[in-house]
């Protein structure tokens, strides 16, 4: 995994409990931040979905439903890219187990990772500077 490296201008920092109830306000904050950064309405809609799905992955898989866990979302502008950092403090996830399922296999579930990869230009785990928890980075070119 690549190391954590912040090089841009911070657009948003949000710390919240890993609870489904919090996701509506997270989506609203992301929508505001990326709209201000110059994303089109369609691009904004896709980004909001991808960030929401990444938060859900943390809630369901990293914290396994423990709502006492915390998530830190940071959004940065790096030249023509908007970069999203999602940090959790759960035990390290097994990255090899995270992959999108065959999209042509029609069944409930397993779509979140597919949405993230389809919407974002780049996504993946990086090594957090603190050495604890997990750090997921996504980027989207908007310029």
């Amino acid at each position, binding site marked *: 995994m690549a190391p954590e490296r912040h090089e841009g201008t911070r657009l948003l920092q949000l710390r919240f409990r890993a609870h*489904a*109830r919090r*996701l*509506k306000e997270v*989506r609203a904050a992301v929508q505001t931040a990326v709209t201000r950064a110059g994303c089109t309405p*369609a691009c904004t*809609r*896709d980004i*909001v*979905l991808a960030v*929401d*799905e990444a938060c*859900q992955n943390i*809630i369901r898989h990293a914290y396994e439903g423990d709502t006492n866990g915390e998530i830190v979302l940071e959004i940065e502008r790096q030249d023509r890219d908007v970069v999203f950092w999602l940090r959790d403090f759960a035990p390290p996830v097994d990255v090899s187990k995270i992959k999108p399922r065959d*999209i*042509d296999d*029609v*069944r*409930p*579930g*397993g*779509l*979140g990772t*597919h*949405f993230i990869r*389809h*919407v974002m230009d780049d996504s993946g785990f990086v090594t957090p500077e603190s050495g604890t928890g997990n750090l997921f980075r996504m980027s989207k070119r908007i310029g």
Partner: protein
Amino acid sequence: MTYEVRESGNMAVVALEGDVDLEKSPTARKVLLECVERGRDVIVDMASVTYIDSSGIASLVEALQAARRQGTAFALAAVSASARRVLELARLDTVFTIHPTVDAATGGQ
């Protein structure tokens, strides 16, 4: 998210309103499966769905598969632009029967 179920004959129209997200999709799943399991043909009115995520889509897929198993109809109607985009991303826009309006789906019933 709120919902309303209107039943007419053997048909149930389930109108979903608001965000069908990780918090609310269990409710959507429950009401859709209940309608399917009662043997109704189900139309999901999605005109007022402001947001849907993978968990909401999973609820629709599960209800569709339950309907197929028992030989009843399950269709979507008046799908909002944001919901249609997510269906397209999931490549499910051709899997579901999608009617432009609820009236078109119900034949005016």
